[in-house]
């Protein structure tokens, strides 16, 4: 079965410090991986995706993520956090082999960046 785990409900970081939001996944085929951000009372916005190729993917607003096949992880990172990065972050996966039509979402991680 396909699944996504975001082990941290909340991540707290000081402005200017690096941040990491964790994501692990389980699929039977090749994973197509995505990160989304949700600001209060808004829809989800796409940040970045991994389909194939370079394991380090760069996306919007200075975010990047590293695909690690052996650890089945796709952690979201940013070298220097901003207060404006405070939001809810979702990891999602699509399975190339089974249920390709569906995106599977994690439960979300709330990022708090303090000044």
């Amino acid at each position, binding site marked *: 079965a396909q699944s996504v785990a975001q082990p941290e409900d909340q991540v707290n970081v000081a402005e200017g410090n690096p941040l990491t939001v964790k994501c692990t996944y389980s699929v039977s085929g090749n994973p197509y991986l995505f990160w*989304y951000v949700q600001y209060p009372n808004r*829809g989800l916005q796409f940040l970045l995706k991994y389909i194939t190729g370079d394991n380090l993917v760069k996306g919007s607003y200075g975010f990047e993520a590293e695909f690690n096949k052996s650890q089945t992880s796709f952690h979201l990172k940013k070298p220097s956090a901003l207060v404006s990065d405070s939001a809810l972050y979702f990891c999602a996966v699509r399975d190339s082999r089974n249920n*390709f*039509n569906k*995106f599977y979402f994690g*439960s979300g991680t709330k990022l708090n960046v303090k000044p």
Partner: protein
Amino acid sequence: NAGVTQTPKFRILKIGQSMTLQCTQDMNHNYMYWYRQDPGMGLKLIYYSVGAGITDKGEVPNGYNVSRSTTEDFPLRLELAAPSQTSVYFCASSYSRGVARVTGELFFGEGSRLTVL
């Protein structure tokens, strides 16, 4: 470039009433989805469609119906509203091609906040 448009943004229903949440996209995406997001929770898939005339159930389809008569529109129908359907509903679309496994990301609407009293 409107993207994915949902209406209404807010609605209060009484128990037993019915309504339709509208969703339209102008990106010529073949895939469309309806999700619900309960407070402090993640997204649960209600229904999805891989093209006009084709729909399928997600994780939580009970109490809902959908149709996909055109590529652009994917309305969600709530029959006999119940308090358990109080939630924020998101419509999303993406473009994918199965043969080449071209898989685009999801584009989301701004959400429809529904309260059933």
